[in-house]
């Protein structure tokens, strides 16, 4: 459990990091919180020959605008729980981050690292897809935007290029009355989810004016339950409507089975968690000013 030999460089700025990436190409890896990468290196599942440490760059700012949230790539998971503005404007961030690992890991792990790592059931990628987000992918001399839905290619695979670095994450939150909820089930507190669901509901009076549902555990990437979302618009979100939407969202998924859970169980969980998340999000939207 010792990593293979590597060179360590500390980047002084985003530009410096991008220059180093350009110089070393596929041999290089960015080191952010190290909570996934270091373990993979010790297991020799990752063997970068150059490690570019971006962990001390000043990229941990959280900005809340109307209808948007921007997280610097190095925002630690813990800040999503503790940031006062987020707690007020978009508590679903903290609610989601609480499911990530344990406090010490949340102190180190970063939003950018989580998205770049792209674990199939990681929470922040789920949030990015739920909130129609995108990332800023910086490379030497340029920045491009990658939509969340296009970013995730498969398990641990993204459309980032080797010379690109995520500098920020952007999330779209509704401008009007809305509520969110994130629910997940894992064997132990802090484990990666067997299945998880995030929901956002916008409402006008009793009526749903917009709905977003993201499912984790259905595919190797977070997926949106678009048909179920569309079916809710214009409805009153009753128990039975929520149950139907949950069933519809889950039925449309292939789901995978492994040693932890069968595909059938995952599908069932997605349905039940969707039902619950929708009801909670709807109620919260109702309570919102």
């Amino acid at each position, binding site marked *: 459990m*010792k990593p*293979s030999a590597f060179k360590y460089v500390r980047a002084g700025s985003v530009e410096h990091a991008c220059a180093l990436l350009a110089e070393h190409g596929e041999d290089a890896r960015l080191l952010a919180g190290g909570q996934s990468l270091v373990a993979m290196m010790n297991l020799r599942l990752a063997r970068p020959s150059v490690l570019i440490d971006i962990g001390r760059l000043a990229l941990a700012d959280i900005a809340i605008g109307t209808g948007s949230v921007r997280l610097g790539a190095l925002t630690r998971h813990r800040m999503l729980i503790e940031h006062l503005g987020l707690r007020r404007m978009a508590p679903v961030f903290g609610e989601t981050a609480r499911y990530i690992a344990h406090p010490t890991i949340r102190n180190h792990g970063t939003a950018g690292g989580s998205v770049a790592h792209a674990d199939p059931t990681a929470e922040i990628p789920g949030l990015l897809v739920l909130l129609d987000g995108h990332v800023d992918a910086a490379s030497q001399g340029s920045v491009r935007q990658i939509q969340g839905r296009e970013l995730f290619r498969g398990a641990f695979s993204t459309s980032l290029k080797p010379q690109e670095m995520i500098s920020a994450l952007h999330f779209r939150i509704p401008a009007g009355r809305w509520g969110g909820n994130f629910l997940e089930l894992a064997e132990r507190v*802090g484990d990666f989810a067997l299945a998880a669901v995030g929901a956002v509901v916008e409402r006008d009076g009793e009526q749903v004016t917009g709905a977003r549902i993201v499912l984790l555990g259905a595919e190797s990437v977070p997926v949106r339950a678009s048909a179920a979302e569309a079916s809710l618009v214009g409805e009153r979100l009753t128990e039975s409507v929520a149950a139907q939407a949950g069933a519809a969202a889950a039925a449309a998924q292939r789901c995978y089975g492994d040693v932890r859970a069968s595909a059938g169980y995952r599908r069932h969980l997605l349905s039940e968690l969707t039902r619950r998340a929708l009801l909670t999000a709807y109620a919260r939207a109702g309570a919102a000013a």
Partner: protein
Amino acid sequence: MTDRTPHQPRFVGARILRLEDPRLVSGQARHVDDLVLPGMLHLRLVRSQLAHATLASIDVSALHAGFPDALVFTGQDIGALGIRANSDLPSVQPCVQPILARERVRFVGEPVAAVLTTDSYSVEDAAETVFVDYDALPVLADIETALAPGAPAMFENWRGNLFIEQSRTGGDIAAARARARHVIRRTYRNQRQAGVPMECRGVIAALDPTGRILTVWSSTQIPHLMRTYLAQELNWQENRIHVIAPEVGGGFGVKGHVFAEDVLVAWLAIRTRRPIKWIEDRREHLIASIHAREHVHVLEAYVTAEGKILGLKADITVDVGAYSVWPFTAASDPGMVAKVLPGPYDIAAYEATYRAVATNKCPIGTYRGVGRPAAVFSQERLMNEIAIELGIDPITLRERNLIGQFPYTNILGYTYDKGSYAESLVKIRELVAPDVERARKPEKPHIRIGVGLALFLEQTAHGTPDFVRRRSPIETGYESAKVEMHPDATVSVDSGLQCHGQGHETTFAQLVADQLGILPADILVRHGNTVTSPYSVGTWGSRGITLGGGAAHRAAGIIRDKLIAIAAQHLQARPETIELADRQARVKGDPTRAIGVETLARWAQRNVENLPPGMEPGLIAISFVDGPPDGSYTNAVHAAVVEIDLSTGQIKLKRFVVVEDCGTIVNPMIVDGQVRGGVVQGIGSALWEHFVYDKDGQPLTTNFADYLLPSAPGLPDIEVHHIQTPSPVTPLGMKGLGEGGAIGPAAAIANAVENALGVPVQETPITPSRVWELIKKRKPIAAGGV
């Protein structure tokens, strides 16, 4: 004589803080990996990547090219050295595990080649360049495949794939069956687990400059047994091998074996004349140390209309993996189940067949509880199922079958000393009454609460006859201690045990302090070192306090008698009238007639002219204590309260209560700690831990992301209650308790889940996925108490 309790024990029974903790919690403790020797080489093993294959070739050309200074050894170099762990029971098919695989590999992780370099990083790079060419063989990945007609034999000259198949019987099982009103037959399964101490294994071996003395530092629970085995296998004189277990960061039975790596490191040190260090990593530990459990039990109970069990028939199969482990052998787990299944119940007829099946997986060894967690799972699940089938309250059913009088000799001839089985049931019934009430009226429609319990015995401190009956290399069951009082009246205790969390340094000091009238702080307990301590078989089997502590108590008693004899002469009093307390020898009831223990200690060694005529100088004593022939039986009842979400399968453990009786308690805080630690491991067995192989014998759970250990956020506070029924057959009435905590939880939690869902639970771990399968089988049934 020396077993009597000293007047008014001051420290036995006291809640004193552990003396070993300051160094452990402040990072001052030194483990094998902390030891650095000049000229040391680091070992990395090339391990088999296939579960079953012949070794076609081992190509080291890339190694030599890339790492010219590296050394490499294979099975051809090391030859016939091996782990030979065969009992001579009639059905045993013997086998040898080569130290490095020779023609064939039999599980993923089996050592194939040894690579040495000068640092622990480069050696991993170097070992990766060794190329092993395998010819795959059909894999025996499970019991069914291994036992299928025509399955290839695991070893040459074997017929079939059984290490052992034996039976144990008592009473007239046919008559029991004929008289029974109900025949209740069930199959129960427990999963394969890993042992997972915090510190993995590690070994360093070095010759002294003369080449005469081989010192082996190993993270082991059994230093003397390791010395004996190494001497035998390496053909060295035993007095020229020193085995030292420095600080050992947990063992749980895993480190109660002599492994191929231990022999290999010693052999390499002799061969290369360089100190050799091997530190196991977590992946190696998970795939290639020992595993535990993986049982299938088919039980058949013959029961009267009133619920009295007339007879019990058991068929016990354990998937023990590829080799037999030393010294406990492949028979350990299945043999233990066959021995203990009757448990605390009065059963007049019993028949058990047990077998150990060879498969292409990591060998099964001893892990906290050894067979008993599985035995108790089956026994206590069966009691619940009988209760439900007959419509009797489960506690009442147990009471109807309970042993009433002590001593009691069970159907296999084992004599149980005194226990508190019935009282413990009464107590637990009271303790969980509010939960039983809550379980009857669930507050939310999709939440169900269940209460379950497990009543069991833990045979502890078994003496030599118990091991002789097993006819395995363990052979004996005594323990030893050497106690020496120095001229300043401080004391060293050298125990043959090895302490890796049990608190011996504290509890033995408590026992000795009471004997000698001094303070625990005056006593230094040393252990884990064959150079300083008398022979012993090591720490396992819940024997530490009773036998090792008993030996320290007795050896101190010999010194005590000598101090009193010296004091008696000086004080001109009869020895019986003298007591040792407060660092003084004094005439009872007359505090003016006293002399300091320190003065006596100095006289005995420095001013020996003051000794009574004819008395030898010195204050040193050694004692060996063997256990009672059938051991001493600790009893306990565990109760679990679970909450299950019917719509997700999520299971939460809300409460866990233990009522236990380990006889005389030396230190209540240490007992509670041992119980809680064991319970947590038992909860792991019940809910999470599962070592999974695929059909090709490839391990799938090789790190802690996949092998799920219990962790604090998912655990309730564990409540521990005590009853003290001193054993009439052990020193001070102490009974062992090291393993008990791990024995009951799987059964208690499974019974709680059954109670919540009204569906029987036949298998562990009870994961959300499995709970969901159970929920799908639900039909409304009558709730059955606990």
